[in-house]
């Protein structure tokens, strides 16, 4: 039970933060949720559509297996603003998946509204890929 508690807290904080996302986009993908999950969560697959050089770090900020994964992004143009993106998967059917993308600015240089810095000390669940 003890190793479950941080995940619940993390999921709750993620949900609260992402309610104020600056960009929200939804996509229907013609693939089962498990397959979409692998395409996002396994680095060699992810690199093929979301390259490392667009990320602030290759490792995800937070992971809820098969449901949600968060990455930190860094803009490639000055002032190189950092943001956090959340990919959330919901099954539509056995071979269709709804992917919701939520992105918000979360730059360490910004004092207000940046609670992601506080979350960075949270244990991040390792991928069971």
């Amino acid at each position, binding site marked *: 039970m003890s190793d479950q508690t941080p995940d619940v807290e993390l999921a709750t904080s993620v949900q609260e933060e992402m309610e*104020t996302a*600056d*960009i929200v*986009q939804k*996509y229907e*993908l*013609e*693939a*089962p949720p498990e*397959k*979409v999950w*692998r*395409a*996002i969560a396994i680095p060699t*697959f992810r690199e*093929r*559509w*979301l390259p490392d050089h667009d990320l602030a770090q290759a490792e995800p900020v937070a992971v809820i297996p098969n449901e949600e994964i968060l990455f930190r992004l860094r*803009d490639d*143009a000055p*002032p190189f*603003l950092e*943001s956090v993106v959340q990919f959330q998967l919901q099954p539509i059917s056995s071979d269709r998946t709804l*992917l919701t*993308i939520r*992105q*918000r*600015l979360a*730059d360490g*240089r*910004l*004092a*207000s*509204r*940046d609670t992601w810095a506080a979350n960075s000390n949270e244990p991040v669940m390792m991928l069971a890929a």
Partner: protein
Amino acid sequence: MVMVENDIFKALADPTRRAIFEKLADGRMNASSLRNGMDISQPAMSQHLAVLCQAKLVRQERQGRFVNYEVDPDGLALIAGWLAKYRAYWPARIDALKTLLKDMDQ
């Protein structure tokens, strides 16, 4: 300049401030003209204007004993640029993801 990015979103998250900002988008105004047609006290208006100024969305200009407020074009350009870039970025990434999904084994 970078420091204000998050303040911009926060400032516009409030419906009253968004209404004030939209009024100013039509042209510069002083605080009492801004209050016309709005159910808002003078101290509350001052506070909202202070938040908008701090976010660099609005700037103030003193003329004698009057203070006019107007939209700050620099703050707007920054935020519009960031949003426009990533709104266009994700559809392109998703096209690449769809290609990958076709290539992957089940």
